[in-house]
């Protein structure tokens, strides 16, 4: 049982997986339970209504530190980006000084913290102080950016993709910020999350699922026709948007060894702990060692 | 054939109600007044007497303009700018004290007048700051009378004003009523069940029939009020009792 966002990217993947019979091939059966909000999936996992959701490793580490052993398996490296209108005069993070910057995900968003670190290092500005920050719900921010009320907007990648299709360009991406913070390559920000004990009991099923997931990603990375089939789920307004979404998705497929991932995540964790403090990362001083699913062997 | 009353000429009050009926919630139509017509001279004191439930209050409500859903015509005294009514129940604002209840009825010009003498006569002294729920029914009725008297009305309508009062108090208040009524030109219309009271106060008594109310008879009393002593009263009561048996 996997809890997903109905219109989230995970649902695309699972849909493609089932349509191509990849779940059966790997000896698993998936029951997709759609939810309308990210919080809902977390509640569902904690309430035992689903076995697996998609979330980020920081959350997992925090939960582990507080005594709830969940584990994490990389799913996507896509994170948000700061988007500005194509003809905007803003060329660098430094130009954001005094401008209105919309931020999705709240002040403790991992991506936002990394970008602040980047801004401090590169442009020597404290974005949170020197730009006018508007925190709000992502759809609202996207809309406000279109209306021109915001000069720039830091937003999750699927919204960013739509904005890009609508004539925006990327000012700085989350990947860049992570790189600047010491990551050696694209780090999978989000991944499948499940209870450790459950995974140990059903390790075959978990292995099968992860293998199926990889194979599906492979398929989505190469086959454009699969995307056409997914179009109704993606609810793209037009061809361009669909294409941008596809390209972005493909860019986000993780392909590094899990050990590298862990190393980078640990590095990022330290940076995040410095900026975000205990509030963000929880009581753990370092990335909890069991955060990544132990049975994980990254294929490519 | 219904004898349709014609409105009469007078600068006082002319009432000519062809028909007033109520549609009850259970769908029945109730004829309350039918072909009731009388006049009251401007500045005169007119009294209505009739059996319980015959339509007296209904008639007063029509006169007051509180109900306009009837067939007929009502001509109010010319220049009856200020109307006072003493309803069958006290109708005081329960959340305002006695004095406020009275003052609220006063027109701006009289708002600040001294009400103490009035309260004194009505036996309400010391109760000015009391809420209606803290009054006995008789006291509440007196507060309602105070309100009506205080505004110096040109049309005064009273619906059984002196019930729930002991005879001594009632007598005092009747005197007060005549005082108030006579100091200024006031047209008064009163309902009572008490023929003695009617005889004492009225210039004209209108006797009403059972429901639907119509005029059963009318008596004008010309004797000045000062001359209405006990002997005179006994005489006239006897005569009226003979004319309208059952009323006394």
């Amino acid at each position, binding site marked *: 049982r996997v809890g997903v*966002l*109905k*219109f989230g990217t995970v649902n695309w993947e699972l849909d493609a997986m089932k349509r191509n019979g990849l779940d059966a091939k790997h000896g698993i059966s998936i029951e997709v*339970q*759609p*939810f*309308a*909000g990210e*919080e*809902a999936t977390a*509640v*569902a996992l*904690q*309430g*035992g*209504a689903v076995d697996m959701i998609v979330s980020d490793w920081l959350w997992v580490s925090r939960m582990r530190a507080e005594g709830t052993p969940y584990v994490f398996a990389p799913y996507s490296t896509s994170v948000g980006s700061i988007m500005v209108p194509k003809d905007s005069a803003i060329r660098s993070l430094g130009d954001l000084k005094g401008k209105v910057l919309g931020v999705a995900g709240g002040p403790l968003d991992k991506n936002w913290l990394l970008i602040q670190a980047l801004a401090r290092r590169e442009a020597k500005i404290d974005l949170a102080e020197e730009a006018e920050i508007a925190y709000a719900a*992502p*759809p609202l921010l*996207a*809309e406000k950016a279109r209306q021109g009320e915001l000069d720039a907007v830091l937003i999750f990648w699927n919204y960013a993709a739509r904005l890009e299709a609508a004539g925006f360009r990327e000012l700085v991406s989350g990947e860049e910020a992570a790189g600047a913070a010491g990551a050696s390559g694209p780090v999978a920000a989000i991944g499948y999350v499940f209870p450790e004990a459950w995974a140990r009991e059903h390790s075959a099923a978990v292995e099968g699922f992860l293998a199926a997931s990889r194979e599906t990603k492979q398929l989505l990375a190469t086959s454009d026709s699969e995307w056409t089939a997914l179009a109704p789920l993606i*609810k793209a307004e037009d061809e361009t948007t669909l294409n941008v979404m596809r390209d972005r998705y493909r860019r986000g497929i993780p392909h590094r060894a899990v050990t590298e991932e862990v190393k980078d995540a640990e590095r990022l964790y330290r940076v995040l702990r410095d900026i975000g403090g205990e509030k963000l990362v929880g009581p753990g001083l370092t990335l909890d060692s069991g955060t990544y699913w132990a049975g994980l062997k990254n294929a490519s | 054939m219904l004898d349709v009353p014609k409105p009469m000429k007078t600068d006082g009050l002319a009432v000519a109600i062809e028909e007033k009926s109520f*549609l009850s*919630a259970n769908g029945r139509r109730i004829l309350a007044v039918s072909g009731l017509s009388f006049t009251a001279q401007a500045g005169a004191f007119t009294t209505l007497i009739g059996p319980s439930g015959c339509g007296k209050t209904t008639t007063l409500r029509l006169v007051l303009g509180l109900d*306009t*859903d009837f067939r007929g015509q009502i001509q109010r005294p010319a220049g009856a700018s200020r109307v006072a009514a003493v309803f069958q129940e006290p109708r005081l604002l329960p959340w305002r004290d006695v004095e406020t209840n009275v003052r609220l009825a006063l027109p701006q010009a009289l708002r600040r007048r001294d009400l103490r003498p009035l309260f004194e006569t009505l036996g309400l002294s010391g109760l000015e700051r009391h809420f209606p729920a803290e009054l006995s029914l008789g006291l509440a009725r007196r507060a309602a009378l105070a309100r009506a008297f205080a505004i110096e009305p040109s049309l005064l309508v009273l619906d059984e004003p002196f019930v729930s009062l002991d005879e001594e108090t009632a007598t005092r208040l009747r005197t007060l009523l005549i005082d108030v009524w006579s100091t200024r030109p006031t047209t008064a219309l009163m309902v009572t069940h008490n023929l003695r009271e009617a005889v004492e106060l009225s210039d004209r008594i209108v006797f009403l029939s059972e429901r639907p109310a119509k005029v059963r008879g009318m008596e004008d009393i010309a004797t000045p009020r000062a001359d209405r002593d006990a002997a005179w009263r006994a005489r006239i009561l006897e005569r009226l009792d003979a004319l309208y048996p059952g009323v006394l």
Partner: protein
Amino acid sequence: MHPDAGTGAKGSLARLATLVLSVLVLLAVWWIGADLAHSRLVPTPAAVLAAGWADTRTGELPFHLAMTLLRVVAAFVVAMAIGAAIGIALGMNRAANRFFDPWLILFLNIPALVVIVLAYLWIGLNETAAIGAIAVNKIPNVVVTFREGARALDRPLAEMARIYRFGFVDRLRHLVLPQLQPYAAAAARSGLSLIWKIALVVELLGRSNGVGFQINLYFSLADVAAILAYTLAFVAVMLAIEILVLQPLERRATRWRGRHA
């Protein structure tokens, strides 16, 4: 004087005419406003109708609407029954009221989010938790309304009932409830709407169907037309309940006030 105030066939017809007129004017105002705004975010009635029709043909709209309605009705019944009982008890008992007042204020002000999450965590992600969470959110409001009503109960009539030894049931049915009718009407009307709003949040946080689930999906797609379509579908149901259930009930219950009331 008020021919339209009557009951019976003529009254019903007049009511229907007013209803139609009202809705038409509302639509006209909306349409003109939408045309002036001329934005994807302010859809015209036609756009909303199209969105609603699209989801009706797939069966989605009726399905999700039915799910939400079931939850709303269940939670409404529970909340009104429990809330009225507590409210009347508090309103009639000073000491209990004094003691429980802070509790009431606490429960009034616990954010819906907290209640919903706790319900899902404790009871599980199921209908019981969903309906319970909605009811718990609404109960304090019902309590407050009924309590005010019970405080304002007529004392002389209560004394009369005491002298004539009314039994508990008679007292409730013939003495207390008729006096609480306006409060019940207020609680029911704003209750249904509040419950529906909470249901939206409940569905957002932990159900895989219902209008709340759908609205949130369309919110993440910024599809205002579809959101309004679902909203209006619910409003239509509420309007039907109002006209076919609440108003006739109310007319019966307030007959005694006389036809001009």
